């Protein structure tokens, strides 16, 4: 897929997935929610979604070899 998604829309999606991960992790830390396997799976999936979005936004070669 050569066409790039609107970077703001991607950023927006990333923040939404991160919101799920952060809110749950804080709730575990604060003792508000028990980190059941189901809830941990949910956090894991949110972070995998972030990874997927980043991968699409920075295709191989660009993030790896880009100038630092």
């Amino acid at each position, binding site marked *: 897929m050569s066409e790039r998604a609107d970077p703001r829309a991607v950023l927006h999606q990333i923040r*939404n997935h991160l919101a*799920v991960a952060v809110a749950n992790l804080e*709730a575990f830390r*604060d003792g508000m929610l028990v980190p059941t396997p189901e809830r941990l799976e949910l956090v894991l999936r949110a972070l995998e979604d972030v990874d997927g979005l980043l991968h699409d936004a920075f295709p191989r070669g660009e993030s790896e070899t880009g100038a630092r």
Partner: protein
Amino acid sequence: MEGTRARTILLVDDEPNLVDVLQRYLVEDGFAVLRASDGPSAVELTEREQPDLIVLDLGLPGLSGTDVLRRVRAKRDVPIIILTARSEEVDRVVGLELGADDYVAKPFSPREVVARIRTVLRRSERAATTPPAQRPLRKVGRIALDPLGHEVTVEGKPVMLTPTQFKLLDVLAEHVGQTLTREQLIERVSVDGDVYDRTLDRHVANLRSRIEADPARPKYVVTVFGIGYKMVDPT
């Protein structure tokens, strides 16, 4: 007893898990919680259940968060805190015409959201319980401003201002006849650096459209070219 009645918070987000987490924190803190995952049901619940405050995600499917904000506000002056993953929306929604009371950027800390809810509720309840007669008023010409109640009247008629517009007017009215520089105004009006040089003029223009008889020829909030703005008493 009226004072111990649980405050009801309406949580609106299309991500049920985020609502679950916030609900858990709020219930622990003694709040009652209502939930909605789309705009139409948020509007309907607001009318039917009269929540004390709404936490509203802007990125809703169907009816957008800004539409919900407008519809709810048209009926009732309920405090609204925005959740948003789009930082570029914040200025428009909180600072400008839509007049949300506060916002929290995603990703957020649930504890932070609860703290903001408490602050906004305290502000609106204090305004509602202090008798108007005891409140100090700022008067400039035919404009009267009640800093505690966050209310403004022009020629005796109430005018709806956003929190930023209100703060701007409050600061200017505190220094009638004195020119305030752009930097001074930005510093006084900005919350978390959300008002920038380029947006100040928009806030002033919006404020004028609410309080001036002819916004194109302002009599109260006048431009001091190259420096900033000044409030004058035209009467």
